[in-house]
């Protein structure tokens, strides 16, 4: 319980966000929208870490540091993924997952 807000509410919000991201990852075809679904998934995990840290272990900072490192990894992943997407677009002139089946040079 955090000043009236139970832990379950945070975890349920994170769960819904996570599975919406999974749904988007399975349904979408454009590579950039796939990347956006992935960001949703990473964010929901951060909410869970931070809420559990604050509500169950208020004197510690572990959950916050995990979130900071997850955000850093997400930033690195987004930058490399967008570089790859732009490179694919330059070679094949589309970024549809089903049309990008030519992996060799």
């Amino acid at each position: 319980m955090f000043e009236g807000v139970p832990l379950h509410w945070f975890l349920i919000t994170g769960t819904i966000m996570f599975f919406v991201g999974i749904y988007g990852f399975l349904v979408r075809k454009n590579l950039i929208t796939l990347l956006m679904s992935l960001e949703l998934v990473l964010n929901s995990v951060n909410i869970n870490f931070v809420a559990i840290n604050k509500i169950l272990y208020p004197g510690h900072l572990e959950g916050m540091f995990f979130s900071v490192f997850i955000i850093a990894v997400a930033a690195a992943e987004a930058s490399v993924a967008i570089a790859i997407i732009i490179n694919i677009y330059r070679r094949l002139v589309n970024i549809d997952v089903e049309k990008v089946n030519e992996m060799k040079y």
Partner: protein
Amino acid sequence: MTINQFMFAIFAAIIIIFSILTVTSRRILRAATFLLFVLVATAGMYFLLRFNFLAAIQLTLYAGGIVVLIIFSILLTSHIAEKLDAPSWKKVIPAFLAAAVGAVITIITILQYDFPKAIVADGDRTNIREIAQSLISTEKFGYALPFEVISILLLAAMVGAIILAKKRKD
């Protein structure tokens, strides 16, 4: 209903509604804008939990950095008025079933689990001084090694992105 519950309800509603719109919107630039709303509401949730530093990181790095990067790449790779094709039912139904079943099972498990009471510890440690000291400390609860590893990862990602995206001399 206390003010905290009220603010939580607003942030949770924004997060859920706009994350659904992010994965269903057929205009890709609008989907990116909805993603921005989700990320800002997440930062609001961190503020609600009094993690001010983390909320600032979320706003600058996610909302300011990654979303701008995504919007730039959208503008580079697709026409601005282009509408994506609607996904076929053959794809939507299994994906929706997988997501819905997973969400229902997880929510039931969360509701049944009885979380222990908070371990009351001394004082609030979320001020910037404590964070900085544990980020470079090598003792217990110190994060010097992950800090160095993440800096090498960011350097590698930067070099990799530049190499991948630069034009080849053919």
